[in-house]
């Protein structure tokens, strides 16, 4: 009798795990296929677009580039220079010194001959106290503004920037990212050619580790030397080219990367600006903006373009990587919980019926289910319930499937912008695909589980995210 009960429980759990896996894998395949198809269409469509037509046009919308800076003394001068030199005719750069403890402020003020100005601020979004506002006296940097404020975190700094911004659109970026020269042109175009009101656009974020940088621009792109960073390259390719591309196509995107995204300032303000109480402020803002538009019955869309626009440094240290993934998990939980009313709510269309459930079941719960699956596996082994043949086959199948998805991501990269010119780089990514399930994935799962635990323990901080800094090649 008890054998019967155990067998039934086993059958129930096995079936549950199997159904979950089938749905998860099917979603990856479907998203992957939608993405590849959309990528091919986009590449063809984009070939003939003359972005530079926008440069001299009086219709070019104004854009404010907002970049919070905290302890960026090593690279702030170069970072500002690279932002100022972007190809666009009608933009301002707003740097927010968010209570840095190093010489970030002094370096910026000296390098750009900045002086204190009396600028009237619209404090529609509440922020920590602003100590001073500076503008450059150099004609070449007349569109540069620097806000010095009390430390309040990234979201608070972004809100301060939005308050000051005088443009129609705001591009929120990480100050140490490298932007492609035409990134503003490419990100602003969807705002101009869609029938519906576009409230946010985002592009692909790439990893800059081991790339050669000269004068604020990337001169040679390579897969990072470090294996941790290389695996993140593959991970980002999957996430952006196979994931977000598909969600963007069906207008179900919940997240525009905090490293670089452009937003309709009016809607950002009406939605209340960035939430300073969450560590996933980028996702939370997009979800809240979507909610605002639906609640006010305004037709809208969020766009995603596959152009590699922004290059960022990936953590190569496991501690920092762990903290990053921990924060991402906590941010996801906070956002999904805060906006739980959208879950399976037809009022929110694709976002409520597809995106939200997907994020809940397959982004948030996946690490937990995976760990529970491992616990169940060990339990089954102890109780002698394992069908070893079946277990071997299913494990190999999952491994083969994961490799397939990674190869799809490499294929997607090849048919779009094939940034990694060397075949050696491709081979390195292929090796990463084979090793990742054993070396990288378990660490990511561990960090995600820790994120869950920290969330329920009430942890709110970002943690120290020290970066090495992007250094130019000396010639």
């Amino acid at each position, binding site marked *: 009798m008890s054998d019967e009960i155990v067998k039934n429980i086993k059958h129930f759990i096995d079936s549950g795990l199997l159904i979950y896996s089938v749905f998860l894998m099917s979603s990856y395949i479907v998203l992957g296929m939608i993405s590849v198809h959309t990528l091919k269409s986009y590449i*063809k*469509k984009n*070939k*003939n677009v*003359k972005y530079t*037509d*926008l440069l*001299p*046009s*009086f*219709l*070019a919308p104004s854009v404010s580039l907002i970049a919070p800076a905290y302890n960026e003394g090593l690279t702030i001068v170069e970072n500002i220079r690279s932002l100022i030199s972007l190809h666009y005719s009608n933009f301002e750069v707003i740097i927010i010194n968010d209570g840095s403890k190093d010489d970030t402020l002094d370096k910026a003020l000296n390098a750009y001959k900045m002086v204190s100005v*009396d*600028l*009237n*601020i*619209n*404090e*529609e979004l509440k922020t920590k106290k602003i100590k001073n506002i500076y503008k450059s006296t150099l004609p070449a940097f007349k569109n540069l503004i620097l806000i010095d404020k009390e430390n309040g975190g990234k979201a608070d700094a972004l809100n301060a920037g939005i308050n000051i911004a005088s443009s129609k659109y705001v591009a929120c970026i990480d100050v140490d990212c490298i932007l492609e020269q035409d990134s503003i042109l490419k990100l602003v*175009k969807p*705002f*101009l*050619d*869609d*029938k519906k009101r576009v409230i946010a656009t985002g592009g692909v974020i790439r990893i800059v580790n081991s790339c050669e940088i000269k004068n604020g621009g990337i001169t040679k792109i390579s897969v990072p030397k470090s294996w941790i960073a290389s695996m993140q390259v593959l991970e980002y390719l999957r996430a952006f080219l196979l994931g977000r591309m598909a969600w963007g196509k069906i207008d179900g995107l919940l997240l525009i990367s905090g490293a670089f995204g452009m937003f309709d300032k009016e809607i950002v303000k009406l939605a209340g600006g960035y939430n300073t109480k969450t560590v996933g402020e980028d996702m939370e803002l997009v979800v809240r903006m979507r909610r605002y538009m639906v609640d006010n019955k305004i037709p809208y869309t969020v766009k995603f373009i596959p152009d590699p626009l922004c290059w960022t440094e990936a953590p190569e240290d496991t501690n920092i990587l762990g903290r990053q993934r921990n924060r991402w998990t906590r941010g996801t939980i906070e956002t999904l919980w805060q906006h739980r009313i959208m879950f399976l709510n037809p009022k929110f269309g694709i976002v409520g019926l597809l995106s939200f459930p997907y994020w809940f079941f397959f982004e948030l719960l996946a690490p937990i289910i995976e760990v529970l699956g491992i616990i169940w596996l060990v339990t089954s082994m102890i109780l002698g319930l394992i*069908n070893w*043949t*079946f277990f071997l*086959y*299913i494990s*190999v*199948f999952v491994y*083969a*499937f994961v*490799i*397939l998805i*990674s*190869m*799809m991501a*490499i*294929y997607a990269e*090849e*048919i779009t912008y*094939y940034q990694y010119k060397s*075949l050696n780089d*491709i081979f390195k990514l*292929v090796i990463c695909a084979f090793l990742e399930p054993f070396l990288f994935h378990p660490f990511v799962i561990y960090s995600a589980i820790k994120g869950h635990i920290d969330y329920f323990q009430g942890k709110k901080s970002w943690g120290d995210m020290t970066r090495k800094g992007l250094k130019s090649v000396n010639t």
Partner: protein
Amino acid sequence: MYSYTSKYALLNISINQFLVIAILSCLIMAFFLIIFVIISRKRKIYLEKKVYRIQDQVQILLSEIIFEEELNAENQLLEYQILNSSFKSEIFKSEIVRLHKSLQGELSLKLEDYFKSKKMHINSLKKIKSPKKYKAIAGLEELLEMNIDTAIYDIHKILEKTNDIELTNYLICTIIKLNPSFGINLLLNLNIELNDWLQISILKILEELKFSDIPDCQKWMKKGESFAIFGCRLSSYTKNTADIPVLIELLNTKEENLKIEIIKALGIMEAEEANEILINKYLGESTKVKEEILKTLELFKKSVNLKFFIRCSIKDTHETQLLALRAINSLLNSNSIDLNTIDYNLKYLHALNSSNKFSNVG
């Protein structure tokens, strides 16, 4: 028991077989994807080298075509070889088009004549009739760049047949560039949505061609909001003062986006006769419209507006207050205001200040 076991055993085997098939499928697909990537990469490298070699040859040929009266024997042979290879002739054509973009005057005309004399435009005309949209667009680019105005008839025919919005936009831009007068009038008769990107493209073409013989503003207003907005932008572009009374009359429109464009156009055209009307309209308008009114009044630089700006800087939303303060600053820094007026308005400001609290005034 036996039948259950064998049935279960049978099922078990088939699941395992299914998994084996699934594993093999995944691995084979992954393998093929990587092989595709490797082959694609090698092909790109090979093609790149091949294209560079051909481009080098083509550069020599093009130099002689542009700067010499006749080709020498060697280059005549080269020309013959290139034109008789579809791959090489496509590269040759794209090099001609690329070079044409950076040439002006006689040299560009010479290149255009050469393009036509070698009947390359016929190939471009064939391309635009292709059912593949992006091939058609590539053909349009070639015809456009090489000023093949004889293609207008074919392009117009395609425009009448197509329902594709993207292709329509390219077709209309091509026609406008080849024959702006015909193109603009044709545009007026279309039932399409003029998104901002298309408007920017058209305006750029008109600016490059220095073409300003645009149908008057009223005609654009009859076609729907996007056309009306474009009409305002065209007025801004041409600065046709005859449009001002029409625009002023249209300020009564209920469409906010259109109203904003009208106000912007009045500002760019320095339509000072609209000054009083804009001030009178101000109170009943939304914040966005008020902001545009203030920006436009700032452009007029009229000293009589100072009192109005002062009132707005105190009694309105943050955004409009800031714009009003900016307008005051701009007016005080210009030479269009005398000391007496400043003195009078300072007293007015003081009187208002005693009865109101300022916020965020720098």
